[in-house]
């Protein structure tokens, strides 16, 4: 039980809790406390120092929007944003209640009356925007994975294809999302023409920009991972006369999983960074738009609210990385490899 729990915590990246588990299982308290101080105490102390320096430094800079916010002002805005979210949800509920009553009354008078159901059109709250951003990056990243992994595998298996693709990869890899965005916007506008779109254009533009920028690390890592598989393992597959597809599924992919996931982690990190920039310009209602709107709004609380977004972006990026890391550990055959 204890070992299973510890394995699960390691897998999910919650190493902080391991000393606590060991402590409750009655393992030498002194060692566990030392581990706890090292794992939890040191980072907490560093964060405290950072907050303190931030507090001191921020007070010294005055901008046209007032003083640069310190930790206290930023925390205030966290509660304000949460309250706004709460209030908006209540308004939304009230709106639907009213609509339902109105429609019920209408039907009572005349059962054949046409009832229209309108959806609530209030402004998205900060938390709605977080969800939009997560969904957008997920779609863009998924598309990038679906493109990059198969091409990477084929390029890794064929030297010719690799030499053909390599210059293209090297040229497109360093391109900034801001350079892609106008082109993507125009292409999406030209090609995505429907009367009732399922997705907003701004969403598709942002997601595609994420795809274009997060494709490359996965592609390169997959190709390198596949081409560096032990040749004898490939020879075993040849002796067994496995066909191309079976060889890929049974030998190539399991052997290069660690490298593929390293690529995916980098890709997701880049995708998340790119998304914020893309949303600013494409006006996709996510965190990027939030930052941009607050900047344009320019009230005395704007900088604090942007700072909340900055920290949110950071924390979510960290969580996303941890999740992919857990997947990587789970799928890798070498459970003892140290992955950071």
């Amino acid at each position: 039980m204890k070992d299973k729990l510890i394995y699960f915590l390691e897998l999910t990246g919650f190493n902080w809790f391991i000393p606590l588990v060991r402590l409750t299982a009655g393992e030498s308290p002194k060692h566990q406390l030392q581990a706890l101080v090292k794992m939890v105490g040191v980072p907490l102390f560093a964060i405290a120092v950072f907050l303190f320096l931030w507090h001191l430094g921020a007070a010294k800079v005055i901008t046209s929007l007032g003083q640069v916010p310190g930790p206290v002002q930023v925390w205030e805005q966290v509660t304000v944003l949460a309250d706004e979210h709460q209030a908006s949800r209540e308004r939304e509920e009230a709106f639907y209640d009213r609509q339902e009553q109105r429609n019920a009354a209408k039907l009572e008078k005349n059962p054949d009356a046409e009832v229209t159901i309108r959806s609530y059109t209030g402004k998205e709250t900060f938390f709605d925007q977080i969800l939009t951003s997560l969904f957008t990056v997920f779609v863009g990243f998924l598309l990038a994975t679906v493109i990059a992994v198969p091409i990477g595998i084929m390029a890794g298996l064929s030297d010719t294809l690799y030499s053909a693709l390599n210059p293209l990869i090297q040229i497109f890899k360093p391109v900034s999302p801001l350079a892609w965005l106008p082109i993507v916007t125009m292409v999406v506008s030209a090609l995505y023409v429907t009367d009732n779109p399922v997705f907003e254009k701004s969403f598709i533009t942002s997601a595609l920009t994420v795809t274009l920028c997060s494709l490359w690390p996965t592609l390169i890592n997959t190709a390198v991972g596949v081409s560096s598989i032990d040749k004898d393992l490939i020879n075993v597959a040849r002796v067994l006369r496995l066909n191309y597809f079976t060889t890929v599924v049974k030998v190539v992919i399991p052997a290069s999983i660690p490298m593929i996931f390293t690529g995916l982690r980098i890709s997701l990190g880049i995708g998340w960074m790119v998304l914020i920039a893309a949303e600013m310009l494409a006006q996709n209602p996510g965190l990027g738009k939030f930052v941009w709107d607050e900047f344009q709004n320019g009230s005395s609380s704007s900088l604090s609210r942007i700072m909340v977004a900055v920290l949110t972006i950071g924390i979510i990026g960290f969580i996303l990385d941890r999740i992919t890391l857990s997947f990587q550990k789970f799928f890798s055959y070498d459970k003892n490899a140290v992955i950071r």
Partner: protein
Amino acid sequence: MDKYLNIDHVSIDFPTPDGPFRALDNVNLKIEKGEFVSVIGHSGCGKSTVMNIVGGLYKATEGGVVLEGREVDEPGPDRAIVFQNHSLFPWLSCYQNVELAVKSVFGASRSRQQIREWVEHNLELVHMTHAMHKMPSEISGGMKQRVGIARALSMEPKVLLMDEPFGALDALTRAHLQDSLMEIQADLNNTVIMITHDVDEAVLLSDKIVMMTNGPAATIGEVMEVKLPRPRKRLDLADDRDYNHYRSEVIHFLHQRHARKVA
């Protein structure tokens, strides 16, 4: 012509920036069914290249390999290979490693039950049933090589190819595995080509020792029949006159007639 395995005037060139490099020149060897043949020579003389050509991993530039009247031109399970570094798939357990081979060779013709029994039977041959559900990273080098041999045997090869199978093991483990291999060979009477650089190993195990000259353009220098009675016991042979005679023949070949100029 009517031998079981016929390596017929095989030469191979490898492309280099300075033109083709002739690694093997006119290698000619006939092997009978059930024979255990060792190929010995200094490192870099192309022993492994011979095996890779028989295995179908390399294509001969001139000449060819004929097995039971059919020319060999690609790898296949009828010429199973035991690699020097075991080459087990690290993400599969020992059982699954053998199972993958059995399924790809006999998957169509045998039932699930038969496949399981055959996998277990082969693991039993190499005395690995006790650890068959362990991962390769959890077992020792010698045990990994045992599983590698079980995997090759499970394909029921017409010729078993072994590329310095015990080269990466310590002396004691190597001796254990050689004994196991002799036991298995007494049972199954496979046709085996083993690449080795170990003189004792060659004399102990083989019916025939093929001695290769040094490269470039390496070829067969001498072929010696080893007519020691089987079963052979390591201890009895240590002081055996014939055994030591064969041994010194090979050593003379390697270190006198074909000594490497620069070691």
